[in-house]
């Protein structure tokens, strides 16, 4: 209650919370776009989503330690993760595309554990960060601070979302991806190389997460076991937004980010993540009710 009064008395802190929520939400959205894509096209829930984010962060870290500019980490992480995603598809994922969803959960969960342990072996469990080299903007007499790298994250995820939308709509491969999503069998009969479509889809997902990871290491911090909250938030966003619509995925991401910031401020940091789960339960229950109503209507 006291915290709520604070927000009413000094509305400027609302600005801070909304901005921070938007920025962190944009990064959630990047990973969620990938998850929606893989889920929608391949019918696989990729549990290793958060680990791709983590790997993207480590790629950036290595690059910076080798003396490169941190911002270069964003494309570099995307490229490295694209290749890794492709390789993972060829090694594991192709075996489970047409299988049971339970199998795909298990397989990607296995991949996520392997990645965690591998990174723990190589880099140790320490928390790592990278200085972005970008500054901070001060608004309202320094009451509101805006880290430039977070702004970059925000615009980048919007741009990537747009590019992906254009790609899916206009490019040949993009059309093939959509065709496969609609009906893989029909697409195959009509000459679409669905295996290649799946590989590209999974690789694009990994690349998106990699870019997100590069931003996370610059704006916050990474360590080998950071993945799960990112996977869960992606899942949450996709559940809310549905599989078909990129714009709504981004909107849900931003919304979740802001909701989380308010929950953290009003209820205390310990409830920030708990709030996400609560929201997830609420959404699932809500969805169940609306669907039940729809079914009744159809009868």
């Amino acid at each position, binding site marked *: 209650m006291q*915290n709520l009064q*604070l927000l009413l008395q*000094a509305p400027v*802190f609302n600005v*801070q*919370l909304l901005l*921070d929520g938007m920025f*962190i939400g944009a990064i959630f959205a990047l990973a969620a776009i990938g998850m929606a894509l893989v889920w929608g096209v391949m019918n696989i829930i990729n549990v290793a989503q958060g680990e791709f984010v983590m790997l993207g962060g480590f790629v950036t870290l290595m690059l910076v330690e080798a003396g490169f500019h941190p911002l270069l980490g964003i494309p570099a992480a995307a490229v490295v993760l694209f290749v890794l995603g492709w390789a993972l598809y060829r090694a594991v994922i192709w075996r489970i595309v047409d299988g049971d969803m339970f199998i795909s959960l298990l397989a990607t969960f296995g991949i996520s554990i392997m990645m965690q342990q591998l990174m723990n072996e190589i880099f140790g*469990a*320490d*928390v790592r*960060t990278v200085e972005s080299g970008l500054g*901070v903007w*001060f608004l309202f007499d*320094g*009451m509101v*601070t805006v*880290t430039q790298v977070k702004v970059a994250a925000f615009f980048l995820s919007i741009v990537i979302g747009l590019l992906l939308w254009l790609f899916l709509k206009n490019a040949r491969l993009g059309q093939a991806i959509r065709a496969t999503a609609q009906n893989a069998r029909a697409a195959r009969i009509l000459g679409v190389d669905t295996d290649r479509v799946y590989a590209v889809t999974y690789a694009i997902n990994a690349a998106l997460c990699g870019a997100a990871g590069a931003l*996370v290491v610059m704006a*916050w*911090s*990474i*360590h080998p076991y*950071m993945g*799960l*909250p990112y996977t869960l938030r992606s899942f949450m966003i996709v559940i809310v937004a549905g599989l078909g619509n990129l714009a709504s995925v981004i909107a849900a991401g931003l919304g979740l980010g802001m909701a989380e*910031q308010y929950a*953290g*401020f009003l209820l*205390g*940091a*310990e409830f*920030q*993540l*708990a709030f996400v789960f609560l929201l997830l339960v609420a959404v699932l229950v809500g969805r169940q009710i609306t669907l039940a109503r729809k079914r009744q209507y159809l009868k």
Partner: protein
Amino acid sequence: MWTDYHEEGDPKMLHRRKMLLATVAAATLMTAGAAQAEECTITLGAAVSLTGKYSTNGMHTKNGYDLAVKVLNEKGGVKVGDKTCKLAVKYYDDESTPARGAALAERLIKQDGVKFMLGPYSSGLTKAIAPVTEKYKVPMVEANGASRSLFTKGWKYLFAVLSTSEQYLQSAIELAAENADRMGKKPNEMTVALAIENDPFSQDIRAGVMDDAKKHGMRIVIDDKLPKELNDMSTTLTKVKALKPDILVVSGHAKGAATAVRQIAEMRVDVPMVAMTHCDSAQIIKKFGDKAEYTLCASQWAPTLKYSDEYFGSAMDFAKLFEKTYGYAPPYQAAESAAAVLVFKDAFERAGSLDPQKVRDALAATDMMTFYGGIKFDETGKNIAKPMVLYQVLKGKYVVVAPSKWAEARAVIPQPKWSERK
């Protein structure tokens, strides 16, 4: 950190000279025929993590024990009654798992006949081993279990040389109270913000801070519990900006320290005092440079402290010897482990016997000074003579600023506002 010290004679030469002396002494004894000093060895048992997740700190622990045993034996061993005994340690690897630690403690006591135990690494393993040593009434001096819960069980044979977790940041609150006038306030007008991780160890730290704040009549305005997964403190810091507390206390292992240092600087949170734990494991100076400046950090021990004893000399002497022997600067885990061995030596000599019960009573009456700090146990077995020290990052170095008795410099309080820096 200690590259500037001078060499203290060639160790080989020193060793040779000692050997010579020892031979002469032995010869004299033999001819005298009165072989009063019987050969005897006191074996201390220890289950230490040499593999698994605590292996790094387990190694520090073992190195600390070994160095102390070596130094004590070189200095003539332990005089128990009219006998002079050498010390030895029997180690087992507990693989960083509590169950294994307890089994090994049982084996040390029952099969190997060990009558005295040194502690393992970490609170969790200490908690697993203590019931075993209690059962067989074997005194254990431990140096690496700081959890408060170790000292609420009424254990009679457990003694800890380190400061317990609830003491970690109490010195920060003391420092705030001492410096209240520099902020133009009375201690009971001050406000405290807490951002402390939601795990048992960190919550012990929180309990200590709460107690001390209450003692001074300070008001807690923020009390956030950081979840384990969180890598973003911005909501808590926004609250700090809004409520303007006089002191911000952060504790959440290395991740908490790193996140706090970075985001406090980025968001330009102006607080007169910022105190945290785990600064050294988060390497805040190396990683964040200027952003870490003026941060107050709690530590068990520092080589720059003016503590000293007759075995190791000063804290700095210990640090030099350790670095010469093992090739790296001693973390506090190694220092406190070495101190545990000194405590045993002191107790053996005062007990004048190797009867576990008498040694236990002598341990309970310990009141000594070591290079690691004063050691005196209360009835629960925790050390109440050694305060936690508080560093402040000043010009890119850790400088001891509290407690006042050991301070190298006066703390910069209030720390300059971000807009006034540089």
